[in-house]
């Protein structure tokens, strides 16, 4: 793959005797929507933490946006966006204040900030909520806002850790429209999810079982390969072989 923005080779993470991530290798292309699937405890989060420069690999390695994840983690951090399920935005700050904060943290030039914020509010149809405290927004809106904030600095890659957890289907569809829009703007999207219908939206999907990547292809090819009608069935067939409990 010529345009790979994520390249991972033999990436391994051990905690004592426990191998959380077991020798995984894959590449993600620029502008791709890459679904990173796996049951709880399969090693998704650990793998993602290493890609984001939060944690050092035990062995193996890789590059993200052209920077080595163990040697140049500070460079990596400048070129990625990140959105976690657990924490989206500061609840006691207004919508624009959250935007302003992340713009500042990611070094968006000060002159451009208010212009970017205004544009973003218009594209989200959020102009009327500019001065609303985030805690007063419904969850679906918060997640959309959090995603927009995570790409406020136009990163090359955005990592989304279960971004739609707990959100109703309608809001999830709107959320995925935002993801498609970001991808069409050239931002690579690396997303973990456990909604299998969302896996169908991805360009390619990898499925982790017990720390290994057991399958990696387009949803269509995976369904053909596993003789399944849906991604859900693919996942079930693969996960049946898992030894680790679904904690």
């Amino acid at each position, binding site marked *: 793959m010529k345009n790979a923005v994520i390249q991972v080779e033999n990436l391994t993470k051990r905690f004592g005797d426990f191998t959380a991530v077991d020798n995984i290798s894959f590449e993600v292309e620029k502008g791709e929507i890459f679904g990173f699937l796996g049951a709880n405890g399969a090693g998704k989060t650990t793998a993602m933490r290493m890609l984001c*420069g*939060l944690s050092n690999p035990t062995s193996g390695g890789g590059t993200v946006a052209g920077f080595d994840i163990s040697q140049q983690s500070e460079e990596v951090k*400048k070129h990625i966006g990140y959105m976690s399920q657990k*924490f989206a935005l500061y609840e*006691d700050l207004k919508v624009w*204040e959250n935007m302003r*904060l992340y713009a500042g943290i*990611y*070094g968006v030039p000060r002159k451009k900030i208010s212009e970017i914020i205004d544009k973003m509010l218009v594209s989200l149809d959020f102009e009327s909520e500019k001065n609303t405290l985030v805690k007063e927004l419904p969850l679906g809106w918060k997640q959309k806002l959090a995603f927009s904030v995570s790409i406020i600095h136009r990163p090359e890659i955005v990592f989304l850790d279960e971004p739609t957890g707990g959100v109703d289907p309608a809001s999830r569809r709107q959320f995925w429209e935002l993801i498609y829009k970001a991808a069409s703007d050239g931002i690579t999207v690396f997303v973990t999810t456990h909604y299998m219908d969302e896996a169908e939206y991805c360009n390619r999907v990898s499925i982790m079982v017990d720390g290994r990547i057991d399958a990696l292809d387009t949803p269509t090819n995976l369904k053909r390969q596993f003789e399944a009608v849906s991604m859900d069935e693919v996942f079930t067939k693969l996960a049946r072989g898992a030894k680790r409990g679904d904690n």
Partner: protein
Amino acid sequence: MNNPKSKQPKPSSQFIAFFKKEFRYIFRDTWTMIILLILPILMLILFGLGISTEIRNTRVAVFDPSRDVATQQIVNSLSTSEYFIIDHYLSDISEVEQTLKKGDIGIIVVFEPRFNENLNRGNATVQLIADGSDPNTASTLVNYATAIINSSPIVTGNAPTQIGTPLPRIHCEIKLLYNPTMKGTYNIVPGVLGIVLMLICTLMTSVAIAREKETGSMEVLLVSPIKPITIIMSKTTPYLILSLFNLTSLLLLSVFVLKVPIVGSLVLLIGLSLVFIFVCLSLGVLISIIAPSQIVALLVSAVIGVILTLMLSGMIFPIENLPLVLQWLAQIIPAKWFIEAARNVMIKGAGIAAIAKELTVLGGMALFLLALSVKKFNKRIE
């Protein structure tokens, strides 16, 4: 790619963005604001005026079989002090117990017969009887009364008729330097300053950082290009500013309301406070890094910052009176060093040389805590 590789977010803009956010958070939380701004003032007034160790207008009963010029002068000295009011004379020594039992009399002064003659011979005695069921008040009353009796002109020999007479006549002499009127607030002001700074800098800071960990925002921050040191700086600076505000309000209050003057250099006092604030902030950061949640951070800070500080800083109980183990423990309580030095500067007018030891200890503590925090913080990321 729309993202040139040379782009390096300026730590100063990151700091400003984060600092603003932190300030908005504090100001939007009404309860936090009340704690931060009103509580220190309440504490100072409460400690300074309410439950201070000094006692005003205590009613005194006197048993005086001598009724001579010396006893009269001593009684006058007591009644002219702001601490005592002469309530009545007992007609018989047997009334003592009954009088104390009634509870409105704080202390009974019992003179011996022929007091003046004995005084001139140099072996006069006065008996002070107080209600020991409240030992703190009783011993304070006895101390005050003893000091007043000993400084009474007839006893010191400074009465006009006694000029030139050799001294001393009474063996036990209590000398109170630096706080001649025995105001409890002299000790209370530096003490409350110590507690308040601990409360704001240590407790609030540790809770504020622990909150970022608990809500998961810390992870989002760690994935961003902001440096841990920038996070810590922008988390602590708002509390530094608030504590400077509190320092100012407490000092103004103590000078103009509690009438405790600042004898020494104000600049030195502020400098000393800054060093102490630095210690408290570092301690707060360290606690927040170790504590897994806000509630743990809160409890640890409350125990170290408030309870241990109240008990072991010398603010309420003199350190010399503590058991030996607690005396050692008191040496690692930052507030102990601060209160000691602040007291010296505020009340004795000590210069920088006199508090060099305390400044060095506090500075050392700050560096130690900071080094430990940075070490722990880096570990935590891994």
